[in-house]
C-alpha cells in the first residue's frame, strides 16, 4: 500500500479529534473557572497558558500514531474542524487556532526528520508548539502591552502545560497503544 492518508486514516484522525473534544468538554469549566479565579490578581490570561497543552493534544498523538509527514498537522486541524462543528463558542476561528497549533506540533516532528519517536521528539514538539502558539497569541491577545515578568511566567507555564498534556500524557497513551500493537512500526 502506498504511503499517505487514506479514507480509514482520515476517519480515525477525525474520530480522535472528536474523542478529545468530548473528553475536554468536561474540562472546559477548568478554563473558565481558572480565568475567573485569576482575573482579580491580574493573571486572568494565564488560564489560557495553563490549559494550552490540553488543546494541543490531538496533533502530537496523531504524529506519534501515524509517523508520516503532515500527520500531526492534519490531526490537530481535523480536531479543530470537528470542534467547530460541535458548536463551541469560537466557531470558524477554531480553524485558525487549528492551523497555528498544527503548524507548531508539526514543526517539532519535522525537526527530527520524521525518524526519531522518543522523548527527544516530545521535547522538540513541546518547544516548537510553545513558540508558535505564543507568537500567535502575542498578536491575538495583545501581549505587547503586558508586563515583562508576566510574559515570562506565561511562557514558562505554557511550556510546562504543553509538556505535561501534549507531551507526557500523550506519550503514556502512545506507550499503551504500542504495547497493544495498535501502532504500526
Amino acid at each position: 500500500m502506498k504511503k499517505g492518508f487514506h479514507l480509514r486514516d482520515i476517519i480515525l484522525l477525525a474520530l480522535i479529534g472528536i474523542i478529545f473534544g468530548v473528553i475536554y468538554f468536561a474540562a472546559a469549566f477548568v478554563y473558565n473557572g481558572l480565568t475567573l479565579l485569576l482575573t482579580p490578581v491580574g493573571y486572568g490570561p494565564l488560564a489560557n497558558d495553563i490549559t494550552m497543552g490540553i488543546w494541543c493534544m490531538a496533533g502530537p498523538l496523531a504524529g506519534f500514531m501515524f509517523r508520516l509527514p503532515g500527520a500531526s498537522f492534519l490531526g490537530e486541524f481535523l480536531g479543530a474542524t470537528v470542534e467547530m462543528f460541535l458548536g463551541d463558542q469560537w466557531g470558524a476561528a477554531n480553524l485558525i487556532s487549528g492551523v497555528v497549533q498544527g503548524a507548531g506540533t508539526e514543526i517539532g516532528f519535522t525537526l527530527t526528520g520524521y525518524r526519531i519517536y522518543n522523548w527527544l521528539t516530545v521535547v522538540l514538539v513541546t518547544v516548537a508548539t510553545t513558540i508558535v502558539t505564543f507568537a500567535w497569541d502575542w498578536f491575538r491577545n495583545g501581549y505587547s502591552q503586558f508586563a515583562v515578568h508576566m510574559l515570562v511566567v506565561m511562557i514558562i507555564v505554557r511550556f510546562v502545560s504543553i509538556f505535561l498534556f501534549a507531551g507526557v500524557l500523550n506519550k503514556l497513551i502512545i506507550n499503551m497503544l504500542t504495547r497493544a500493537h495498535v501502532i504500526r512500526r
Partner: protein
Amino acid sequence: MNPSLKLFLVLIVALEATFTSHLYVNLVIIACALAALLYHRIGWRRLSWLVVITLVPAAALFVTIVFFSPAHNVHFAWVLVTRLYVYVLTGATVSCTTSALQLVQSLEQNCHLPSKFAYGILAALNLLPRIHQEVRIIRVAGQMRGITLHWWSPRLYFKAILVASQWADQLAQAMESHGFVEGQSRTYAHRIPLASRDWLTFAVLVVALQALMIALP
C-alpha cells in the same frame, strides 16, 4: 451566500482583526455580524450564551491590561475585548446558519476538497453520539472495577482510541464496499450553487472591510 465563501470571509475578517487594532472597525463588524445573526433568526438562548461565555476571557484581558499592565492602555483593552466578540459572533454567522453537511459539500464541490476528506469527516461526525456513549461506557466499566477514569487518565484515551480505530476500519470498509473509491470523480445528488451573485457579495464585503480599516481610527 455560498457556505465556502462565507467561511473564507469570516477567516479573512478574523485574521485582519488580529493584526490590526481598530476599535471602531471591530464595533462595525460586531454590529454587522449581530444583524446577520438576527436576520437568520438565531435563538435567543444561543445568542445570549455566546455573549455571556465570551465575557470570561474578555474580562480577564480587560482587567489585566487596564489595572495590571505598565501602560494601563484602556483603548487597547477595549480593542481586545471587541476583537474577541468579532471572533465569536462572525464565527457564529457560519456555524449557526450552515450545517456541517452543507459546508463540507460546498468545500468538496466548490473548492475541490478531496472527497476522502469530505466523507471521512462527515462519517466521523455522524459517530458523535456513539462516541459520547462509548466514553460514558468506558468510565462506568472502570467504576464497576473500582477505578475512576479522570479526563487526564491515559487509560481513558487509550480505550477510546482502540474503539475508534475499530470503527474507522469498519466504516472505511463499509464505504468502500458501497462503491466509494478515493480520487474517483463523483456525481452529486445535491448541488451547492456558486453563483456570480455570491462572488459579488464576497468581493463587496472584502472591499468594504478594507475601506473601513482605512477610514476609521
